[in-house]
């Protein structure tokens, strides 16, 4: 079960979140929200790809669905925004069940690109829906009212607690029976199957959990921007970022995405400050992920951890 220091970590996150929300300026808060939501998405991708062995190139679809589920529900009803936000991951996870059951008929690379096709379909259908308002975009107006004040203060607290809580929850999960089955699946799918792990069901659970997680993180992120278009919510860059963060940081390790997000955002801020363009930044990230894959295919974290252990 949950250990005392893990509980303490969540409590500490809550405290630091409240403190940070009061102390940090708007720009830093915005950056912190982005870092934290991106971390949650990458950890989700890692859970499915790194632990479950199912590489998806279409998880940006859940980001987009999460955002629109939040914006449309909050705008059309008088439900409190944060209550709607809490409901988004669960609704999207449930909706992902039938999709998962169809997509799991595709194996490996077929599944990966098949998910990408799904993301394209959903994005283009979203364009055609009148209530999404296409390229004109949608403004977040909960219950028809404009948001007052700075939502990123609350988003920051939620995101920090969610990110730390996710790490704790995954640690706890990996100690349970289902968690041990997941680890067995990561290390050797055939052996896990032979040992009686219901791989199909586990894949479906991981698929739905990661769908819900990406949806929640996406919804959270766009509360700070208050505005969304399908082009933005469903953009390929979400999945590129999830993949790059995990691959560079370390697939199949909990700490990998932490390291990955630090590198991704650190490099971006550094390169932007040094006057490099966004395209140049992505060229470097692409090169970096290729280099890491070729030198250390499980990512930097396992390699670094190995050096520390030896040293």
């Amino acid at each position: 079960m949950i250990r005392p220091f893990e509980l303490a970590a969540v409590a500490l996150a809550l405290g630091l979140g409240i403190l940070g929300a009061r102390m940090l300026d708007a720009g830093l808060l915005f950056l912190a929200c982005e870092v934290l939501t991106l971390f949650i998405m990458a950890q989700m991708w890692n859970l499915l790809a790194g632990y479950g062995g199912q590489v998806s190139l279409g998880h940006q679809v859940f980001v987009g669905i999460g955002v629109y589920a939040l914006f449309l529900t909050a705008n059309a009803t008088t439900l409190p925004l944060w209550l709607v936000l809490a409901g988004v991951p669960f609704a999207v996870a449930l909706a992902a069940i039938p999709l998962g059951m169809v997509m799991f008929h595709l194996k490996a690379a077929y599944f990966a690109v098949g998910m990408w096709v799904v993301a394209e379909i959903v994005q283009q259908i979203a364009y055609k829906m009148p209530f999404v308002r296409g390229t004109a975009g949608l403004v977040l107006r909960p219950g028809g009212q404009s948001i007052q004040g700075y939502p990123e203060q609350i988003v920051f607290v939620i995101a920090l607690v969610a990110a730390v809580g996710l790490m704790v929850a995954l640690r706890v999960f990996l100690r349970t029976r289902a968690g041990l089955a997941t680890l067995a699946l990561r290390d050797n799918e055939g052996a896990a199957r032979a040992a009686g792990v219901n791989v199909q069901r586990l894949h479906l659970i991981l698929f739905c959990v990661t769908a819900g997680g990406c949806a929640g993180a996406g919804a959270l992120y766009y509360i700070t921007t208050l505005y969304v278009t399908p082009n933005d919510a469903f953009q390929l860059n979400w999945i590129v970022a999830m993949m790059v963060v995990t691959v560079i940081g370390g697939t199949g390790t909990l700490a990998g995405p932490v390291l990955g997000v630090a590198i991704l955002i650190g490099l971006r801020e550094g390169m932007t400050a040094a006057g490099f363009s966004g395209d140049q930044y992505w060229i470097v990230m692409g090169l970096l992920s290729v280099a890491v894959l070729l030198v250390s295919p499980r990512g930097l974290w396992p390699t670094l951890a190995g050096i520390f252990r030896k040293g």
Partner: protein
Amino acid sequence: MIDVLFQGLTLGALYGLIGAGLALNFGILRVVNLAHGEFITLGAFMAVGLVAGQAALPLPLVLAGAFAGAALLGALMQAAFVERAMAFRDPMVAMLVTFGLAVMIRNGLLETLGANLRGLDVGGLAQARVDFGGQSFGLLPLVTLGIAAAAFTLLAALIFRTRFGREVRAVSDRPDIAAMMGIRVARVHALVAALSAGLAALAGVLLAMRASVSPFSGVAHLLIAFEVVVLGGIGRIRGVLVAGLFLGLVQVIAQRFDANAGMLYVHLTFFLALVLRALTGRLA
């Protein structure tokens, strides 16, 4: 009606062509090359560049130039990066490497050329028409169809009739035994990657003569190529062609009813086929 059919077949032949390149790569190297769409864009832009530099350049030379340029880059990419990634036990590593390379190429194109749409100006060819059996056909689609048909025939001949094709199939079946017999496997892989990239570039040039392309077109074309391969089957050149023609027809017919649907109906058709196959349990 005949016009729609004709247009669908022309577009479908191009879809088949880009699918054939991807299928070749997947069938022989067992790697889904996610940079395949980028080679299509690259081919189109190389042609645009060639025509901009030398307006009087005849079409065959433009095609050959784009083919050669993409093939060279494809071979280099395979030899320098993908081949090494293929040594790892997990086949997903090689696919993710191609994804990283695709991100690099796409953003490289954006950086050098910007996000603008570009078309390939083919002068009088675009308007020229020929009458055939009381029906008037555009010359450009006819030329496109002819080139695609020639490319398919040559590809089939290369794979099934030549010594190189024999070695390619042997490497695909059993790379270790092929290496033992003295076939240089990495070299065959690089040549296959070159051929695949070259075919993509060829299709890219022909696509750019029909409609404009931008650095963002690569993704859409990659997905089309993927759908063609899944529906047509790997290692079945004829299946790939038929799947390409089918999706091309879907695209053109859908466009009649909904002009700005993009590739939505093509993707939807593919997804429905997938659901159907999933329900009947008939899946690769």
